[in-house]
């Protein structure tokens, strides 16, 4: 009996020490699926270099903001700027969100590789998403109904797309399909002949075809100099000015290693 109790005590002690040590040296990141690859790569790098555990969740930019406001994450990764309402909610809870730009990202419009359409104007894309253009024939493609793919409402990519392409006060058609991540948009576009969707630039690969917007393809140069019309900054949000470990993490994009990692992931250095 005594043996059992002592075993239990030891077990309890181990658990307690584990949680105690975890509380000291863990960074928690939550938010955008677009920023996810950067956050994960940084996390692995950070852990290797400083021996600090970094947990990364990808639940959408909106959830990232919420986590930061609730205090359940140290850094919120977001693919859009915080909204005024979110900042107000944060202030109310005594959280002071501070943004750091991590990288730039072009939103690539993608179609199935077999689709002959090479370029669309912003107005055409907008009409497709609002349901006024429903056939590829109308934009120089084959006679096929367009399958419109969008992201769900807590996606920062979706909000950026709406803001950059469609504009305020216009609604995306109800027949647009909703996907929950960049990856699932890519897999749906690569397997659906008449689909159109949008992806973070870093997610594009050979399985989908990128089309030009207003005649400009998303590349490092066009995103950096602003000629590609659908691009946006990606953010790390912290509570107050970052300090200590958090500052070291947030400053990673300034270092040579950080820049290399961002480029390797297909994002663009600011």
């Amino acid at each position: 009996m005594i043996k059992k109790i002592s075993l239990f005590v030891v077990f309890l002690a181990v658990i307690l020490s584990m949680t105690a040590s975890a509380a000291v040296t863990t960074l928690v990141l939550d938010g955008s699926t677009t920023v996810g690859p950067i956050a994960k790569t940084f996390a692995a790098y950070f852990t290797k270099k400083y021996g600090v555990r970094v947990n990364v969740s990808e639940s959408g930019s909106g959830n990232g903001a919420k986590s930061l406001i609730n205090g359940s994450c140290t850094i919120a990764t977001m693919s859009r700027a915080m909204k005024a309402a979110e900042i107000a909610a944060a202030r109310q809870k005594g959280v002071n969100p501070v943004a750091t730009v991590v990288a730039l990202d072009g939103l690539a419009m993608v179609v199935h590789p077999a689709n002959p359409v090479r370029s669309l104007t912003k107005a055409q894309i907008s009409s497709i998403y609002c349901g006024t253009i429903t056939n590829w024939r109308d934009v120089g493609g084959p006679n096929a109904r367009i399958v419109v793919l969008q992201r769900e409402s807590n996606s920062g990519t979706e909000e950026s797309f709406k803001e950059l392409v469609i504009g305020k006060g216009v609604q995306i058609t109800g027949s647009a399909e909703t996907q929950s991540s960049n990856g699932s948009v890519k897999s749906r576009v690569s397997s659906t002949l008449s689909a159109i969707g949008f992806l973070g630039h870093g997610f594009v690969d050979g399985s989908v075809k990128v089309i030009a917007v207003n005649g400009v393809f998303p590349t490092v140069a066009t995103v950096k100099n602003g000629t590609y019309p659908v691009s946006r900054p990606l953010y790390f949000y912290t509570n107050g000015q970052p300090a200590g470990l958090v500052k070291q993490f947030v400053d990673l994009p300034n270092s040579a290693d950080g820049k290399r990692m961002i480029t390797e992931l297909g994002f663009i250095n600011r």
Partner: protein
Amino acid sequence: MAGESGGECNRTNAFVVSARKRTMQKVAKKAGESMLFAVASFVAVIVLFIFYFVARDAFPFFQIRGFTEFFTSSNWYPADDPGEFGALAIIYGSLMVTLGSALIAVPMGVAAAICLSDILPFSIRQYAKPVIEMLAAIPSVAFGFFALVVLAPLLQNNGGPMLMWAWWILVSPFVLLAVIVLSDLLTAKIIEPKRRQQMHIFLLILFSFLSIFLLFKVGTVLYGIQILTGTNALNVSIILSFMALPTIVSVSEDALQAVGRDIREGSYALGATRAETILKTVLPAGSSGILAAVILGIMRALGETMVVWMASGNSSQIPEPWFNYLQSIRTLTATIAGDMGEADQVTGSARFHVLFAMGLLLLIISFVSNLISERIVVRQRKILSGQ
């Protein structure tokens, strides 16, 4: 109570037990009973609490926006400013996939249950039932992944031929049965045996040709269909029916087993064939259990979230025309799961509360159907036991 404890005393007096031990026993008995009671009431309390908390957060939505928009509009733009909260298309989508999965799963499930309980030998049944029940152990996200990655492209690329084969395989046995039964019925009144036989054969041939023509005609129409998007109501219905099948098969098989050997043997003793025994004796006797099974299976389909979120396409639209299973739809469960992340404190209350209104609607639907099935089961039992 007093009599009971007296009985207890008499019993324990038969053995030599000390007074102290007897009190201990009594205390232990009371403690055990109250423990069990607490656990049982805890479960009931959980249900009440869920109802209470969902309803508490659902009512503000109706206070803010009223009932009309929610139930009559299909404009679902919760993220806009001001938002629109028309859930008609979403409610319709939920009912559509539930009906679709029931249409596939109920005939298949009941047929499989009959086969397991009355047709297959015991040795095979022993292995077949656990294998079917294993379907229930597959996590829904695995089903969803299959629907998204395998079934959706398959439907897009070979949708027409697949529909045609499904039509042939599923419908032709029923048509065959219908042809036989129909010609039987139509010739039943002819008294003269020779004429009846001639007429019977003539009708059989006539109906066979007619039905084969019909099968072919519909088959070619189906063959020509080009499915635009594989994440649609059909895809979800198929997968949901797979998920509902183990429940339906397992529970209805239990119900058919419970009918008992004596009733079956009574039927055979009266000269009934095996088909007559199954159709006219076993099925009616087990009907309450089968109904319970069907409702359980349908509830599984209605409440499923992950699969529909991944594979339904999530477009808030009523398909055009309304019975078109080849278009994307959106369901209540998927909307709650998908919109919850953003809904919280950010853009104001209606957007948050509307999800609870949907949750309440789901709760009410399942509560009512459970109640109905309970009623039917009780009534059926009364009829069968002859009260």
